[in-house]
């Protein structure tokens, strides 16, 4: 190989920036109190992928993860005693784009939804341009947890 290397070969070395790290927005305990203030929580079904708590005031609190573009997004779902979404909270988000799913107005769209709703992006849930992947995966995640409630938790 020719030993003559042009100077511009080393331009990418100038692009070094600090390493990334995860941003924790809420702990599980904080999310529990936001969605069910003052309630008690009893963990059930340890060892499964989703972390599930029965809420003393009635309802369920579930923590799960969905894939963003490269990293997992941790989120919490509160389901009231009638099987409707009480709220969605983003616990941890690690990526550069798509963090708009933390926006309160976007998350508020899920309130009152149940397993009977189709929960489709751009139909039931408004998409955020530039955060489409995160919006779709969080929406699909909430939908999956509502199905889980319907099939496993509702009759308990």
């Amino acid at each position, binding site marked *: *190989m*020719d030993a*003559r*290397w*042009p*100077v*511009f*070969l*080393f*331009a*990418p070395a*100038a*692009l*070094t*920036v*600090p*390493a*990334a*790290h995860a941003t924790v927005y809420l702990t599980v305990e904080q999310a529990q109190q936001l969605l069910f203030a003052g309630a008690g929580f009893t963990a059930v079904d340890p060892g499964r992928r989703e972390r599930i708590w029965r809420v003393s005031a009635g309802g369920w609190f579930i923590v799960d993860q969905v*894939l963003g*573009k*490269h*990293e*997992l997004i941790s989120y919490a779902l509160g389901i009231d005693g009638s099987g409707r979404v009480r709220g969605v909270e983003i616990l941890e988000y*690690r*990526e*550069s*784009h798509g963090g708009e799913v933390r926006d309160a107005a976007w998350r508020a769209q899920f309130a009152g939804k149940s397993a009977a709703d189709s929960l489709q*992006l*751009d139909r039931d849930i408004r*998409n955020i*341009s*530039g*955060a*489409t*992947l995160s919006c*779709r*995966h969080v929406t*699909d995640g909430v939908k999956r947890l509502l199905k889980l409630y319907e099939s496993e938790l509702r009759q308990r």
Partner: protein
Amino acid sequence: MSLSRFAFVAAAAVAVAAPALAGESPFGYVYTTDTHPRGAREIEQWLTQRHDQSRGDYNLWQGRTELEYGVTDRLQTALYLNYASVSALHNRPDGTTGPGAFVPDSVDPDARYSKTFFQSLSNEWIYRLLSPYKDPIGLALYIEPTWGPDERELETKLILHKNFFEDRLVWAANLTAAAESERYHSDNWEREGELELTTGLAYPLAPRWQAGLEYRHHRGYEGRGFSSSKRVYAANFAGPSMHYASQHWWVTLTYLRQLANAKAYTDDAREDIIDGRFYGEHHERYELRLKVGFSF
């Protein structure tokens, strides 16, 4: 200040000034339909090494410094500088130096030819018609005029993008048609056409890491148009790619090796095929491309 030093200083200055994030492609050669949202900006630095012709020494470094901007959520534009450094010695099938890619006809056949030069300025536009995240398949249109002292080109692409397995597996394919005029060989402008199919698959190996495979089929034509009577050659490349995305920047490395199944359709082109590989018109044994990008 020489061009290469200027490019280095410019890239370094932009890097220091840029604090933030990136949207990115897992491929070195294949475009996906992912575009920047409105108002988002990204700087990219590309370096491509094209190495080895039929014999002797041949080494070409191509640099590209690019600024991308999201005009709307579906429309993205980019402006970039292309520059290169070529070094050749006895690289032709007959053992002489040049002519070939960026090596003029008038070169001394027994001496090394080296040159670092500004190649061109390009303006890229991508419009996304369908999103792979909301529609059955992603679809985007691409157009890119290029102007340089010794080349003019208009390149168009049709970009397809489909994800599988909850968006873990990424597939993309590009159909490219380009019409160009260049005068790297002599003072006379030569008209050429190129058709290209590139496709790739990428899958996450670990958080932040994606591994991929890319394939490139490239056809060259004389003059204007893409009729079979104007075909000159067809060459194929394939190889792996690796992509890493940080919260603030990303990097992609792709290695493509020319497959030994090139085809020639003219007598001149047949002379440029050695052991099944085509070495005329900017073709080498392998290409190595490094891309680094981040938003600001």
